[in-house]
């Protein structure tokens, strides 16, 4: 009797224990899945908010290139044509956009068009000067408010005073849709233009170039210095307190918050050395100092992975230590070093805070062409657009995030490729 109770107890205890075991395993599994679910949700959010930014809305506008309105003649020189009164043509086109518009209506209609329309009308004419004195149907960019409405990003059912477009403008847009005078096409502006106050003509080209210049600076500075530092620490450094100090320094620098590097850039590079503000040169220098520990750590690991027999072989046939290291060890460690560098660059690409500190947050409406020109950078551009109150910038920020993520993905893919292709297992 006693025996069977004890047996039962043991069995139930064992059941309880194995249940506990199952539950614990399940907790771990859930935690892992939750983390990955957040990743999926994050990517989904970005994609669903951002994909609309790759399209823009254009409107069919009938433009009358009347020579009197333009104050041009068919045989005007190119220079005169530049000075044609295109704003008058545009005004006329908008006045006749719908039949019988009153003055107040015209104002409303005007707000359906982008600020860029003047330029588009002009460019069309300059490309086809023969259209003078004819009426042309051309597609011009719509205002961001119209664009957002048609993409479904802003809602119709909120009260009129909280909407960007009032009821009359909504009816105009509906009419345009009905008459097929509005359509959505690929948004080339997003890839060819720099930042703008107007969402419909804002693009990432400027900040993309800024990021490229910054990364170039980071690479130029950090790659040689990192190789030098790791070769010294791995191969030449005597075991003494100075070497130890350097090593402690490097591992501590790796954990210093990035914003502190920004303060370093502001306090030293800008204020003491007087380097130009907001430029990729300064941004790149700060990020280079920041990524240096990452690259050094990767570089030392790959130097360590080269078997000592290689070096010893070189020494045995009479090479000096410098020759053995630079002719034999470093070339073998190079793929690993490059991989580490690319990962460091990827980290630098996404870094925002230090760039804000050194002024790369300024509004730069043109595409930079050099290292010492003020420019934006992709992550800072995203920040500016996220913070912007204008609704049209939200999809832009998500789309810019897509651009930066693709860029990051490519860099990591290259790093993995290099590692798999060139790294030797000894």
């Amino acid at each position, binding site marked *: 009797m006693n025996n069977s109770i004890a047996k039962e107890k043991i069995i139930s205890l064992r059941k309880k224990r194995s249940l506990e*075991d199952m539950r*614990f*395993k399940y*907790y*771990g*599994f*859930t*935690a*892992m899945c939750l*983390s*990955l679910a*957040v*990743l999926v949700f*994050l990517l989904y*959010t970005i994609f669903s*908010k951002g994909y609309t930014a790759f399209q823009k809305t254009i409107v069919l506008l009938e433009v009358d290139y009347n020579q009197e309105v333009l104050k041009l003649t068919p045989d005007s020189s190119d220079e005169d044509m530049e000075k044609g009164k295109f704003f008058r043509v545009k005004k006329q086109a908008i006045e006749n956009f719908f039949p019988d518009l009153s003055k107040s209506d015209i104002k409303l209609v005007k707000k359906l068009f982008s600020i860029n329309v003047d330029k588009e009308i002009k460019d069309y004419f300059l490309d086809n000067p023969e259209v003078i004195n004819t009426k042309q149907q051309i597609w011009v960019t719509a205002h961001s408010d119209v664009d957002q409405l048609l993409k479904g990003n802003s809602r119709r059912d909120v009260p009129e005073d909280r909407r960007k477009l009032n009821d009359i403008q909504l009816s105009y847009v509906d009419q345009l849709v009905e008459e097929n005078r509005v359509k959505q096409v690929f948004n080339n502006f997003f890839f060819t233009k720099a930042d703008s106050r107007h969402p419909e003509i804002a693009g990432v080209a400027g900040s993309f170039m800024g990021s490229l210049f910054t990364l170039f600076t980071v690479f130029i500075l950090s790659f040689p210095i*990192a190789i*030098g*530092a790791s070769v*010294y*620490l791995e191969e*030449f*450094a005597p075991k003494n307190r100075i070497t130890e*100090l*350097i090593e402690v*320094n490097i*591992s*501590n*620098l790796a*954990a*210093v*918050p990035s*914003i*502190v*590097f920004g*303060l*370093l850039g*502001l*306090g*030293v590079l800008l204020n003491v*050395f*007087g*380097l130009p503000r907001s430029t990729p040169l300064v941004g790149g220098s700060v990020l280079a*100092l920041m990524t*240096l520990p990452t690259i050094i750590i990767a570089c030392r690991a790959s130097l360590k992975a080269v078997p000592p027999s290689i070096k010893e072989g070189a020494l045995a046939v009479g090479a*000096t230590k*410098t020759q053995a290291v630079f002719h034999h060890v470093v070339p073998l460690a190079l793929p690993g070093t490059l991989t580490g560098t690319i990962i460091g660059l990827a*980290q630098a690409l*996404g870094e*925002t*805070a230090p760039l*804000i*500190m050194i002024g790369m947050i300024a509004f730069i409406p043109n595409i930079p062409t*050099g290292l010492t020109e003020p420019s934006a950078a992709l992550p800072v551009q995203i920040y500016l657009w*996220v913070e912007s109150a204008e609704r049209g910038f*939200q999809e832009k920020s*998500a789309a810019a*995030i897509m651009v930066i*993520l693709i860029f*990051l993905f490519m860099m990591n893919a290259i790093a993995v490729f290099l590692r798999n292709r060139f790294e030797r297992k000894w």
Partner: protein
Amino acid sequence: MFFWSLVLIAVGIFSSFIYGRSRIKLNSKKQGTKSKSLPNYYAQYVLMWCLFPALIVYFSWAIFQEQIIQNIVISNFEYIEGAVYNEGLLLAEIRNVANNPSFADGKSIEIINAASHYSSLRQISQISFYTSIIIIMLLGALYASQKLKPEFHAQHTIEKYIQYILIFCSSVAIFTTIGIVFSLIFESLRFFAEVSIFEFLFSTEWYPFIPIREGQTAAEGSFGAVPIFAGTFLVMVVAMCVAAPLGLLTAIYLAEYASQRVRKIVKPLLEILAGIPTIVYGFFAFVSVAPFVKAFGQSIGIDASPTSALAAGMVMGVMIIPFISSLSDDVINSVPQSLREASLGIGANKAETIKKVILPAALPGIVGAFLLAISRAIGETMIVVVAAGTAPNLTGNPFENVTTVTVQIVVALIGDQEFDNPRTLSAFALGLVLFVITLFLNIIALQIVKRYRERYE
């Protein structure tokens, strides 16, 4: 200007290399002896003597030219008596006029004079820059060419130089640290000259509004950073509440339960999570999580603000999950297999082994990992800038708006930077606090992890 000088230097070193090579060959032929080192080493020797002095000139010019010119212009400026000048604005104006003659209209005659002075100085500087680069390269090559004799051990010398270069490279890390410490301390001292350090550390009022222009009426700024520290702490606690359990459980699952295949898939995915730029998390917090938190708060009757500590902290927690999980994974994996086997051998099941044997054994390492994660959470900027708000608020309610150290640094530096204004300088004082705390956490964490590693080695 600096681009063409780089081209100049490149041409210089190329020709010096060729020159060195041919010269040593010629010299050894003349003397009829073989040179002690290969000709390339002599060429490298000439090249180094040509390149490094030129680079020093180049960088010192790049760094100091503008400042020296500005100082000369300002010291020669004809001040009108009675007028008040702001030196920074004045300089900007002079520069604008000098770079862009069309801005000269309507400017006073002193400014136009100063602008022409400025441009003439720039021209002089440019000419002397090019000449000094050429001269210094020639001098370097001349000095080196005297040594180009067959009995000269070029290789030894080159290897010594290489050593110096390598030492310089590795000391960049030390220079960086020194630069950080000095710039933070220097500007903080200027800040504490105006604001008492006790007020900064212990007062609870943070109103850094100081009249920027004369005559503007505003209250005296007050710089009590306690609400900022409290906000940072609150966000960090929320982040750790999310990241610690998720990260640790994920690590346990991956290290102890998951099959090799699952590990191979999940680990890179977690690395993706770790590699996403923080501004992207900021966007996510702002667009998805903050509205959700607000709606959730309303549904349980709490009035949540659109940007809250909870939203920022939760997303920050997600950001540090991979950090905690990969560190803890390493730590758990380095617990000796014998401990595991002993526990399983006396009949404990896996969960019991983990809870009663592995986790206690790995505890120091895990604590170290958590400390590193905390230091990262404190130093994180973009998520909180976008999603936590900028108004200081001394509260323990995570649904409310709080601000953090990093946010205040950004806010203080994002607009006009006036370095005679405690508002701007406060950023450096906050940065110093941030630096000291993260450094402290880091050193402790690394010590703990190191000791832990040694125990099982």
